[in-house]
């Protein structure tokens, strides 16, 4: 990299089932306006605009990003990599800045799925129409297929899934932007209706809409201002078919090879060799508890077979990183935006601007992204210290 990159400003709308008081363009405007204000940057000083919107059918509007024209006259690109749309968009902006093509990049992501009557029918259309789409493959069943595999291979129980979700809901109570503000105990979650065994309704993420924006800047723009420095960021892809990822020596379907590889690169860039001790906060792209469990070994926090014990240890071992202080995607999942929200939340933690959800003494925070049937993974390390 030719220059270091930092996040100067963060803007978010709240996340909820519907924002009936705002059109799609107005949601984007609100997040962007807040990010520019937070960064104390004028829109005229932005060099490039990058927009993240995942499947258009979730909103029932095509290319909605162009309806909120931000900074007309500047280059604009739209990015869609499914669940990692938000982080891919942030990384594209960071790459513009790192390469010297831009001094200030404005990135935003919008989810407008509140306009859809049902999301699972739309999500079925992301699967291959030739071999897969005839089956009830959806985001929920995809997660359930992995959850049952994790239970068989590593001994997770429905109780573990419920306890992860309960912790996320509890954290969300301190995040005014979260969609779900309910103190749900593991018992409440296990008592909620089954959607697809072993997934209960209250373990599944909600359908949320909202927008997020970040202002990314080069080292010379940042000067001696406070910034959340991007100490390392990497994205990795994997084979398309889930069935192709069962029998391979480098990792099964639940080993999240793409996240392992992204973590390896980003940790190396950020100088992390003991993530369990060096990370203070981890914001995970985990719309389901099983999705969270899959990340632990991929992030180097525990061995896969120790995963269930690691879930239990989180409640007592305070030296471990804090997971999802925002509540994570189980408390708000604006799909296109979710992976950028993770980065935004880590930036707020590092900048000590996270309000009631602020964790003490955060020097380093990690944000993950997961997309396309875990075909895509991203990892971003943010720190309060300027990278060397």
């Amino acid at each position, binding site marked *: 990299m030719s220059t270091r990159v930092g996040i100067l400003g963060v803007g978010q709308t709240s996340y909820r089932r519907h924002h*009936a*008081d705002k059109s799609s363009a107005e949601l984007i405007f609100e997040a962007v306006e807040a990010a520019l204000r937070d960064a104390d940057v004028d829109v005229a000083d932005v060099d490039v605009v990058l927009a993240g919107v995942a499947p258009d*059918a979730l909103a*029932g509007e095509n290319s909605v990003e162009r309806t909120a024209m931000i900074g007309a006259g500047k280059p604009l690109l739209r990015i869609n990599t499914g669940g990692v749309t938000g982080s891919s968009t942030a990384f594209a902006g960071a790459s513009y800045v790192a390469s010297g093509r831009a001094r200030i990049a404005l990135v935003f992501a919008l989810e407008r799925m509140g*306009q859809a*009557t*049902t999301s*699972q*029918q739309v999500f*079925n259309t992301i699967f291959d*129409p*030739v*071999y*897969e789409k*005839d*089956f*009830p*493959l*959806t985001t929920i*069943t995809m997660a*359930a*297929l*992995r*959850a*049952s*595999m994790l*239970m*068989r291979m590593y001994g997770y129980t429905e109780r573990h899934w419920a306890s992860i979700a309960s912790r996320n809901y509890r954290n969300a109570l301190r995040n005014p932007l979260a969609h779900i503000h309910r103190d749900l105990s593991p018992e409440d979650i296990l008592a909620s*209706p*089954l*959607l*697809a*065994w*072993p*997934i209960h*309704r209250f373990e599944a993420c909600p359908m949320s809409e909202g927008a997020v924006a970040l202002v990314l800047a080069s080292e010379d723009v940042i000067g001696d201002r406070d910034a959340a420095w991007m100490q390392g960021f990497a994205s990795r892809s994997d*084979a*398309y*078919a*889930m*069935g*192709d990822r*069962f*029998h*391979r020596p480098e990792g099964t*379907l639940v080993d999240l090879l793409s996240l392992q590889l992204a973590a390896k690169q980003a940790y190396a860039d950020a100088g992390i060799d003991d993530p369990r001790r060096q990370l203070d906060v981890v914001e995970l792209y985990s719309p389901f508890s099983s999705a969270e469990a899959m990340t632990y070994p991929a992030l180097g926090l525990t061995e896969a077979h120790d995963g269930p014990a690691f879930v239990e240890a989180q409640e007592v071992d305070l030296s471990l990183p804090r997971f999802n202080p925002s509540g994570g995607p189980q408390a708000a999942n604006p799909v296109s935006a979710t992976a950028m929200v993770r980065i935004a939340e880590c930036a707020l933690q590092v900048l000590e601007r996270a309000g009631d959800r602020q964790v003490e003494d955060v020097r380093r925070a990690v944000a993950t992204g997961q997309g396309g049937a875990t075909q895509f993974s991203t990892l971003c390390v943010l720190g309060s210290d300027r990278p060397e």
Partner: protein
Amino acid sequence: MTTASDLITIKGNWSFDYTYFAGETASRFFKELREHKRVMGTRCPSCERVLVPARAFCDACFCRTGDWVEVGPQGVLETFTVITAAFPGLPEPPVVLAYATLDGADTALVNLITGLDASDVAGTAERLMAQPRVELRFIDEPQGRITDFSFEIVQG
């Protein structure tokens, strides 16, 4: 100040018709289902895996596949879910969705498990967690579609 009743909503509907092109490789795979009631894979000359269902290329090795290989008719259940909630446009529950690796294949294949009373969800889950053997069950008049067959648990 705007109140909720002042906010306008406008009804919308996306309903488009499409014709999906399966391509030569999947067309042959479907013809084998329809005419011979058999499941075929293609072998990657580089990693030597037999990819099922048949693929024109291996996306792990970035190379074209070679030989066609018949797999099954039995295999091992890899993972599953018992779908218990109804969603618009998707089949009525309970439905058991699973991945199974057919004998001779190096990849798992998604399909439904049929011939199983899944109304006892916990009991079904417990049984399927033991990774039973499965076998292909073809419909009487295959249409040349992936839905021409399903998995059934091998008894005994």
